[in-house]
């Protein structure tokens, strides 16, 4: 018998490698574990995501589907080998394709980038100058959750060009420049290290035993007996082993989630035990001695809040977690007096974050300190939650975040950090853990499903009079960010429009579904679906153009919000105004297309957004440290997690201009809870604004110190020359940094500044100042509905967003395009069904062909509070997309959509129910 797997030789990136071992092993596992080529990512182990794409004998294939036994004599190219391909400069230089990815901002978090690059390289080898359509087909098998694909297409089609390296920017020119990502190079070479990519030698591999039931009691059998008969099982842990408080939660007052369940599992996928396997052992949990007793479960929040429903948590009657309220004026009376009314409802589904990097990390002890390297959006929160669970003081836990392969809100909550810590503490050995795609999907948070009813009125001129809004949010088994959703939604329920009378309520109800957590927008996208679709109905009722109705009601400076906050730097009117010519053109295009009778109907829709940046009425500080070493190295301690959105670059750009030295002279440190001050969590679109303000303050403070030392004032220029800092004003002054005494941090000069947004608590009626800065935007969706099949083909999205000040246009466009892609998913295809769609082929996210061309219009209406006037953007961009699509569908077909995702069968049923358009 032929046994090619044994000592077969394969050529990987031009190097011969002996492929020993099991021939049935996945090539992806071999590359990562044996060959050390961890640029090849594993996102699903099922061929669903394409992250592991490599080139085998010229053809792009998923390495996770390729048996080693087939590769004798094969030539394999991974991302690490692209730079040395024929025709490239080689020797460590980037390939033209890799450089094009950097130039176009085609890599955000970078986790899909190796798969994109290899798929593209296989295409380019045959077609060096592909059309966009050819590129789309060639890359269609790779999923990206960050970019919205458009910049990837542009990069691939432009990859024939020889890259011109970025010119060094002079001091003071960073803000507003299209600076390439400072952390971009390792993302395109495959050198970036994500959660699963690095672990200490000899690390134990952890696997969690998880509940297969939505709700179940469980007890363990003979654990030590099972361990004894299994080879390679080093240890087993259960809740009984947890030394500290077995409860975590992002909001301390609501902390309710055990790291390992205690006798009862409240959701499918909940971890109940942890098994540590010796390195190299097959991590097989078959026949693990646990018996389950399935208990009645709740998956419908309306049933869950009904009288007599079983309780998910004993202390929360009615399964009621929390409610939020904003009341201003007498909404009922104002509606009764309104000339026109629109009334409607919308129902949304669980939405999965579907980052391409499942949760992963490793941990070890350094002396008395537990070190955890894992993907996260919130290092300091991870530290505090993990320390509490393990009974350690926080200073004995060090969080060293890895590169993060997408987060979108779900990596704010701890996942595997306490499990890693527990196993390391108990065994004294380093440990590693990587969630499978199914584990990631079942056990982590989701966007809250919402059931919203709302009513909006206006007068004869289309001036909005009042809004009533009632939202029921399924917050799943554990609190997570449920309280934030309940509070944030009523504040934003009006949309960015003057609404004199408001009664907006939202409540979060427990079920045995996955925990409702943070997902780009914290409930506001769901609320906007209700409000923005009603605006279209209201416009029709009043006989006013839909864009015009929005313009008439858009906030202006000095207007008060539903919470009574008086706004400044209000850019929504500018956004809508910028869309006006596009709106006119799009309506004309649609009318022309619809003039011929066809089953294809074009539609145009518009929707707006506003979004408060940072925590709702709670402290939310960021601290940034900046230092100059005696050797003249300028070090920025940048603790704001870059999860692909670009904080590393944007924070540096802001700091550079505040200080007056070029971006190129900065060295970044962090994030690392031992090395960087707390820059808060990457959530609520706060990093550019809040950490940016701290970075601006730190830069300014260091500049002030320098100027004092130089005895100069005003418009001086700074320049670093080795260990000398040259200060040039009316006179020139040289500061010898080496001559200054280094402080305990090792800096000759240092500044550390904190910024906390000035907010004020909301009273019982939700009146107050919940946010210091709001960002605004509006989008037009143009689409074609196939009325016979109920399918929707998007033609174009035009997006106008007010950023206050654009720090980096390329990154801003990347945020917009990526947010739109997620909005498309929310509107048209994404529906997480617990127990049914726990993979990336049943759970659909948009692919290359689902995101149309996007035109971004960047509006700059400076905010008085933001750094250089800047506002947040990350979440705003997702909010208008889905309602704009629904409004366009209504325009095309007359169908008022009341449930998303608008799957083809649902739209077709609605078209049938309505009758021929």
């Amino acid at each position: 018998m032929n046994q090619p797997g044994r000592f077969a030789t394969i050529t990987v990136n031009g190097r011969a490698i002996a492929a020993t071992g099991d021939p049935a092993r996945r090539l992806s596992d071999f590359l990562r574990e044996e060959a050390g080529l961890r640029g090849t990512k594993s996102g699903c182990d099922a061929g669903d995501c394409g992250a592991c794409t490599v080139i085998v004998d010229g053809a792009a294939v998923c390495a996770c589907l390729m048996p080693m036994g087939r590769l004798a004599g094969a030539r394999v190219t991974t991302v690490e080998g692209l730079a040395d391909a024929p025709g490239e400069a080689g020797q460590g230089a980037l390939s033209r394709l890799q450089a094009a990815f950097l130039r176009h901002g085609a890599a955000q978090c970078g986790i899909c980038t190796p798969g994109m690059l290899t798929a593209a390289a296989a295409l380019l080898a045959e077609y060096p100058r592909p059309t966009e359509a050819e590129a789309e087909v060639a890359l269609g098998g790779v999923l990206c959750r960050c970019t919205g694909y458009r910049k990837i297409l542009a990069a691939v089609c432009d990859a024939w060009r020889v890259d011109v390296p970025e010119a060094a920017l002079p001091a003071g020119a960073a803000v507003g420049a299209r600076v390439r990502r400072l952390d971009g190079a390792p993302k395109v070479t495959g050198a970036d290290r994500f959660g699963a990519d690095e672990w200490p030698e000899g690390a134990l591999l952890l696997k969690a035993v998880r509940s297969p039931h939505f709700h179940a009691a469980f007890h363990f059998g003979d654990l030590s007996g099972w361990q004894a008969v299994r080879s390679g099982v080093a240890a087993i842990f259960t809740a009984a082993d947890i030394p500290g408080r077995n409860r975590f939660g992002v909001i301390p007052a609501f902390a309710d989630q055990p790291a390992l369940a205690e006798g009862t599992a409240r959701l499918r996928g909940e971890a109940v035990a942890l098994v540590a396997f010796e390195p190299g052992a097959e991590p097989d949990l078959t026949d693990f001695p646990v018996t389950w007793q399935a208990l009645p479960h709740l998956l419908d929040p309306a049933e869950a809040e009904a009288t007599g429903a079983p309780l998910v948590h004993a202390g929360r009657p009615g399964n009621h977690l929390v409610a939020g309220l904003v009341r201003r004026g007498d909404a009922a009376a104002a509606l009764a007096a309104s000339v026109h009314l629109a009334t409607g409802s919308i129902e949304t589904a669980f939405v999965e974050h579907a980052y391409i990097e499942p949760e992963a990390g490793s941990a070890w002890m350094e002396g008395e300190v537990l070190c955890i390297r894992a993907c996260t959006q919130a290092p300091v929160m991870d530290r505090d939650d993990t320390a509490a669970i393990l009974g350690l003081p926080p200073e004995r836990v060090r969080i060293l975040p890895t590169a993060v392969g997408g987060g979108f809100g779900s990596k704010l909550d701890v996942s595997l950090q306490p499990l890693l810590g527990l196993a390391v503490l108990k065994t004294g050995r380093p440990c590693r853990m990587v969630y499978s795609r199914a584990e990631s999907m079942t056990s982590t948070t989701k966007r809250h499903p919402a059931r919203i009813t709302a009513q909006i009125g206006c007068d004869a001129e289309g001036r909005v009079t009042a809004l009533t809004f009632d939202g029921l949010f399924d917050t799943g088994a554990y609190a997570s960010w449920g309280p934030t959703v309940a509070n944030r939604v009523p504040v934003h329920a009006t949309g960015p429009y003057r609404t004199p009378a408001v009664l907006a309520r939202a409540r979060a109800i427990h079920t045995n579904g996955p925990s409702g957590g943070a997902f780009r927008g914290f409930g506001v996208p769901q609320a906007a679906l209700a409000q923005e679709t009603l605006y279209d109905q209201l416009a029709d009722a009043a006989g006013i153009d839909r864009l015009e109705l929005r313009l008439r009601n858009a906030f202006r400076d000095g207007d008060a919000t539903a919470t009574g906050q008086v706004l400044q730097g209000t850019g929504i009117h500018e956004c809508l105004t910028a869309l006006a010519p596009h709106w006119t053109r799009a309506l004309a295009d649609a009318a022309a297309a619809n003039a011929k009778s066809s089953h294809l109907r074009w539609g145009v829709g518009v929707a707006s957004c506003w979004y408060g940046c940072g925590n709702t009425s709670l402290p939310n500080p960021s601290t940034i440290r900046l230092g100059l070493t005696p050797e003249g190295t300028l070090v920025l301690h940048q603790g704001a997690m870059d999860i692909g959105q670009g904080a590393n670059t944007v924070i540096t750009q802001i700091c550079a201009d505040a200080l007056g030295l070029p971006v190129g002279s900065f060295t970044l440190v962090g994030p690392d809870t031992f090395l960087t001050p707390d820059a808060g969590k990457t959530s609520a679109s706060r990093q550019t604004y809040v950490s940016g303000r701290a970075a601006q303050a730190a830069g300014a403070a260091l500049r002030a110190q320098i100027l004092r030392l130089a005895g100069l004032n005003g418009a001086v220029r700074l320049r670093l020359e080795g260990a000398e800092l040259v200060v040039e004003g009316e006179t020139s002054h040289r500061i010898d940094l080496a001559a200054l005494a280094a402080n305990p941090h090792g800096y000759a000069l240092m500044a550390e500044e904190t910024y906390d947004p000035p907010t004020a608590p909301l009273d019982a009626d939700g009146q107050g100042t919940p946010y210091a800065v709001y960002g605004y935007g509006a989008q037009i969706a143009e689409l074609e509905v196939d009325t016979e099949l109920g399918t929707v083909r998007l033609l174009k999205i035009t997006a106008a967003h007010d950023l206050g000040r654009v720090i980096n246009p390329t990154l801003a466009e990347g945020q917009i395009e990526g947010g739109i892609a997620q909005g498309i998913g929310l509107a048209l295809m994404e529906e997480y069904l617990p127990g049914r769609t726990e993979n990336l082929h049943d759970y659909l996210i948009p692919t290359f062909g689902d995101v149309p061309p996007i035109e971004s219009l960047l509006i700059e209406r400076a905010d008085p509070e933001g750094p250089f006037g800047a506002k947040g953007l990350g979440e705003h961009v997702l909010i208008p997309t889905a309602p704009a699509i629904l409004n366009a569908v209504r325009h095309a077909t007359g169908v008022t959509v009341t449930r998303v995702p608008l799957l083809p069968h649902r739209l077709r049923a609605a078209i049938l129910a309505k009758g021929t358009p």
Partner: protein
Amino acid sequence: MTEATSDYARPTALPEALALLAAGPLTVLAGGTDLYPATQAQRLAGPLLDITALEGLAGVTVGPEGLRIGAATTWTELAETDLPPALAALQQAARLVGGRQIQNAGTIGGNLCNASPAADGVPPLLVLGAEVELASVRGVRRLPLAEFVLGVRKTARTPDELLTAVHIPAAALAGTSAFVKLGARAYLVISIAMVAVRIVAERGRVVEAVLAVGACSAVARRLPQVEAALVGAPLSEVATRITAAEVGAALSPIADIRGTADYRLEAACVLLRRAVAQALPVEEVA
């Protein structure tokens, strides 16, 4: 690491493969695009028979009796081979299976043996009157495709048999064909419904019509009643002769996350009309 074991065989000669199959149950591994996703482990459980090195198992050959498609022919090879217009539907399907990576690895034989109700390869082969060739140490037999795929994940292959080829009879190479797939996104999508049609037309009228629908019953089905109604139809009337009642009579769709049963039936009808319009030669329509 464990050393290579006899659990993984990758012979080059068919008799050797058949002898191995005769000696005991083996999992047949072709493209791996269905087997690997079915496990969370980093290796497939054996024993395995990797058939991708078998001589003569890949590629399309033409003979007096028609076409022979080797079972290990990949979707990409199918899409890129110069084939008669009757196979246009199969080639279109090949370009719509998964993404490029899946097409480069997945095989036509694996698609048939996996027997998914949503297997994109089945309707285009049904309209070609395809037969499968099953080889074992006991000999070689041929089965019409409709008699091979028996149900969800169920085929007529006995454990000692290997699906070695798909045969397209010469008579079925007449006419033109089209494939239309309906899914909720552009790439990497499991079909809600898909159809294949092959039409032979002469002097403005349909001489032969073969229609098949997938993902609307446990096994993709031909639609004999509809086919009969199309024969003799002027080309301008072909689409309108496809009636929902007759399409529905042939199918038994389920409701699932991708669509309701009613929707599938209606969609199948719409897709068939479109596929027919697409398959008809332009000059014949005009």
